């Protein structure tokens, strides 16, 4: 049996196997990354609230100094990147559940992924820019 090539054991194409019959064997990836980012966001969210609470007056100079602290820069980049990633995974599920017109669904799915990458990169560049301006 094991000496036979794959197509002899099963003549069906992967598409035929998946269509109305079961999973495409990639669904666990989404589930796993959603949980992994969720676990990472538990401490990061609590840290972020604590960070913002140290800026009650929102004045430019103290915000600049606070964000430019190396640990804060690092954690802010992590928080925003993982936050955008987790958010995008969640929005994907909402869109897949409620948008039933295929082309709108696909457009939205592409748009949220593009926006998440732009958002995460913008945050990382801004945080690094602030860090470099001070040090």
């Amino acid at each position, binding site marked *: 049996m094991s000496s036979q090539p794959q197509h002899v054991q099963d003549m069906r194409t992967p598409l035929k196997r998946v269509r109305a019959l079961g999973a495409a064997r990639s669904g666990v990836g989404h589930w796993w990354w959603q949980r992994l980012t969720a676990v990472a966001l*538990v401490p990061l*969210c609590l840290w972020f609230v604590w960070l913002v609470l140290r800026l009650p007056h929102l004045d430019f100079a103290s915000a600049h100094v606070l*964000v430019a602290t190396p640990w804060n820069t690092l954690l802010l980049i992590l928080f925003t990147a993982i*936050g955008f990633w987790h958010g995008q995974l969640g929005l994907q599920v909402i869109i897949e559940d409620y948008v039933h017109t295929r082309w709108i669904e696909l457009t939205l799915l592409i748009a949220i992924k593009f926006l998440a990458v732009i958002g995460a990169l913008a945050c990382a560049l801004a*945080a690094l820019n602030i860090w470099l301006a001070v040090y």
Partner: protein
Amino acid sequence: MPHARPLSPHLSIYEWRITMVLSILHRVTGAFLCAGVALVAWGLVALAAGEGAWGTFAEFCGSWIGLILLVCWTFSLFLHLCNGIRHLFWDAGAGFQKSEYFTSGWVVVIVSVALTVITWLWAMRAGGAT
């Protein structure tokens, strides 16, 4: 749709329960928090851009609409965080007894309301955003 599927009964026939309310709120707060992380992005980019851009951002955060949104974002964050931890316990296979998921649901509501109140009392005591 290529394959017609039977539809489940419509949402409106069910009696409201803490479990379904939290399930719906988890999605709503999750979507709302996506706008929240966009606000964080705006703040960071404004801080990098300079004092003028930051001023516009700070003015928005200190305005009435900004403060109302910030309170909603704070509550959404804590609710999604607490309920997310509840989901992680379920993923590990714990807390599936009927009494357990009703209790954990109310714990999520109480803790997230308490954390929101504590956060804003702290913020106001420190001077307030306005």
